[in-house]
């Protein structure tokens, strides 16, 4: 008999396929885990709809749950319930330590260009706020590219969603 806690612990060991410093649980994409007998139902919210890692995440979750001896049912919920605000405080710290600036809090009405161009974003390497927006878009849909003028280091900024 599998317990909910075992499932959460197993899911917490799955790294994000594109930012492996953070786990799926840290990322906040697991909305719920429901165990009844040997059936485990997981509600999973994608980060970006075009993220090519979605299938990899889904398969990894199913594999971990099967390894616990249960049948996995992974339900993808494509609504507005995932936000970068759901990244856990531990997750934000792991991102920063991995060289990814964690996202700014979601504000009412979404981010504005003028905010992105402001220098209120901290460099994850030296902590300076003297940073500039290089590109709204980056190597994956969830990241922007910024440049730190203090330590002269480009860095990736997790987009606020």
């Amino acid at each position, binding site marked *: 008999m599998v317990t909910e806690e075992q499932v959460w612990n197993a899911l917490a060991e799955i790294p994000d396929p594109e930012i492996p410093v953070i786990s799926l649980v840290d990322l906040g994409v697991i909305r719920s885990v429901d165990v009844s007998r040997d059936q485990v139902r997981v509600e999973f919210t994608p980060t970006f709809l075009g993220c090519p890692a979605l299938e990899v995440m889904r398969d990894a979750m199913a594999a971990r749950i099967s390894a616990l001896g249960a049948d996995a049912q992974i339900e993808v919920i494509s609504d507005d319930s995932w936000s970068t605000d759901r990244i856990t405080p531990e997750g934000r710290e792991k991102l920063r330590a991995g060289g990814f600036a964690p996202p700014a809090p979601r504000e009412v009405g979404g981010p504005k260009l003028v905010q992105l161009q402001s220098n209120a974003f901290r460099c994850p390497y030296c902590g300076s706020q003297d940073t500039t927006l*290089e590109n709204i878009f980056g190597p994956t*849909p969830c990241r922007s590219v910024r440049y730190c003028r203090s330590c002269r280091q480009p860095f990736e900024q997790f987009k606020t969603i």
Partner: protein
Amino acid sequence: MTDQVQKFLEIADDELILGWRNSEWTGIAPLLEEDVAFSSIAQNEIGHARAWYELAARELGTTADELAFDRRPEEYRCSRLVELRLVPDWAATIARHHLYETADEARIAALKQSDDPEIAGLAAKIDREEAYHRMHAQMWFERLQDEPRFQAALEELRPLLDVRDEHTPELAELWEEMTMVRRSVAGATW
């Protein structure tokens, strides 16, 4: 087919075709930043297309892939605006980007008000991603707005936005490229 399914197909077709067109800049955009931007925007648009195709597919008893790739070019409901192959014309590409994102914003805003929580929720999620596309389009609009070539492209492309019943030969050419692999391996699942 209900009006609502028709609407999902219009949006999905627009996003799929524009996603392909945007991806044509990968590797050859005038700036490295724009290679990255247009590639990322293309990826988002195709993700949105899939989400709308999935809703339509459930109503029609089919799959998202079949709707995206197994219809004939004349069955697509996309706008003529997204069909055109604009590479290597950067001014026209930015003009289309701006026209499309502006129109798409209004369409998504209306869907966010839907009584169906699934539709409203999906539209709200898409809108948060599209906010970044709109910022990018706006930034380029401000840079190019005084350029006569850009103004001319806006005037030329604007009337195409609402044309959905007649397609250009360019759509059929794109369809050939887009569905080539799928047609060559019958019954393949990926």
